[in-house]
């Protein structure tokens, strides 16, 4: 199993056309990228997340496991500032949500279930649009397409691409602005082994970003993580260092 440390300037700088990371030094945050305490979120009367508390140091990876409907996606969307927390404290990259959301946005990358790309635009147009929104140079968008191996099909409308290809473009999109925090919802869904290896530098540990990773592949999730959070019935049923968790314990969450 890989043992992760904080990102070194080396690993960060190894990517082509690197975007300088926005300053994240905020007093009192030490090096925790994500800090949750008593976090809760409801839809109307239905509570989908309750009392989640954890601390994820910068540069480490948190694997989130749990059955369908356990609250994984909701947790990810709260961290992405797309849903406001209804209870407790959620501190992401030193900013307290929801009030500091504007400060955090743009420093995190979300790879959700949907690719968040326009189907009628080409991959290149989609990335150019996001580059403008994030204030990133257009050349960087092309470099990203190259990195996920999509340069050749970059000028075809996205709806003509296969799901795996769309997922690669989505990965290029999510990492376009070199986010400090990556929120990944089954990032390797629809990817063949070759493509999976190709995107490794972008979303893998080597990329150096702090990661929150939803994965149904328990073995793989444990192998990539430093910390494991198991959700069951909207509550945290398991929280431990990845080294101390057996795949069996995680499997129990799905029962």
């Amino acid at each position, binding site marked *: 199993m890989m043992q992760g440390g904080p990102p070194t300037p080396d690993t960060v700088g190894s990517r082509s056309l690197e975007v300088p990371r926005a300053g994240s030094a905020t007093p009192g945050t030490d090096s925790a990228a994500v800090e949750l305490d008593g976090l*809760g979120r409801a*839809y*109307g*009367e239905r509570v989908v997340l309750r009392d989640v508390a954890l601390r994820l140091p910068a540069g480490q990876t948190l694997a989130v496991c749990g059955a369908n409907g356990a609250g994984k996606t909701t947790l990810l969307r709260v961290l992405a500032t797309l849903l406001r927390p209804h*209870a407790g404290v959620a501190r992401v990259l030193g900013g307290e949500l929801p009030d500091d959301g504007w400060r955090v946005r743009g420093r995190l990358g979300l790879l959700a279930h949907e690719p968040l790309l326009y189907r009628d635009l080409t991959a290149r147009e989609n990335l150019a649009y996001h580059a403008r929104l994030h204030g990133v140079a257009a050349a960087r968008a092309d470099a990203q397409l190259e990195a996920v191996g999509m340069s050749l099909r970059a000028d075809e409308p996205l709806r003509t691409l296969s799901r795996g290809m769309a997922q690669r473009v989505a990965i290029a999109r999510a990492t376009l602005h070199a986010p400090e925090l990556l929120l990944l919802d089954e990032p390797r869904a629809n990817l063949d082994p070759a493509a999976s290896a190709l995107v490794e530098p972008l979303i893998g540990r080597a990329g150096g970003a702090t990661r929150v990773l939803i994965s149904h592949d328990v073995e793989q999730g444990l192998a990539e993580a430093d910390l494991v959070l198991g959700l069951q019935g909207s509550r945290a049923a398991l929280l431990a260092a990845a080294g101390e968790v057996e795949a069996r314990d995680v499997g129990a969450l799905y029962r």
Partner: protein
Amino acid sequence: MFGRGLKIFSLLSAVLVTGAFALAFFYAPEDADQGLRQKIFYVHVPLGIVTLAGFVAGGIYAVRFLRSGDRAHDLRSYVAIHMSLIFGVGALLTGSLWAKAAWGSWWVWNEPTLVSFLIVFLLYACYQPLRFSIEDPGRQARYAAVFACVGGAFVPLNFMAVRLAQPLIHPRTLSSTANLPGSVSFTFLVALVAMAVLFTTLCKYELASKTAAMQLRSIRRRLSGEDISPLADPSRRSAAPQRL
């Protein structure tokens, strides 16, 4: 929480409404050319005024909801607009009756107040369809509040545009109460207060009933073992009404 004062308000509105009708029929003088039919004025105009005030109140509560995130304001906004819609139907029907009595036709396009009222009513009639076609309760409340704010601004602008569109040759009926006999003004005033108190009372009833229904539902759910206890941290959001 909304149940207080219901008895007093009910009693007060019963007394005032009866009083207003008594004044209208036995105290206010009969109109020279419209006769008894003019009495509908004491129902129609207060209905219209209270309806518009209810829409505006709905807008004000909507602003307060958007600012505070307190669901109780959302519930108040909803009830005010809902009740105004009911009163609005009454205002349109009595207006139509009055038009028939005064001008011999069920509907007149050259009475700008009535026409504006119809347009405002048509706009607010979309409030409930909008609300009920949104699933997420939080979004439902926010979207309804945005609608209520827009409606609040629309009311005066619409009245102005419709008024200007008239050829300006029709004398405005009862545009000012200044030149009316004192008995008419007094009766009208009592009728207006009666209508306003009736409106408030009915709103209070609806608020109390909605709140009770919601509490009942949440108790039922808790009894059936569902985990619905409100999330802690009252500073962020009240545990008040969710779905209406």
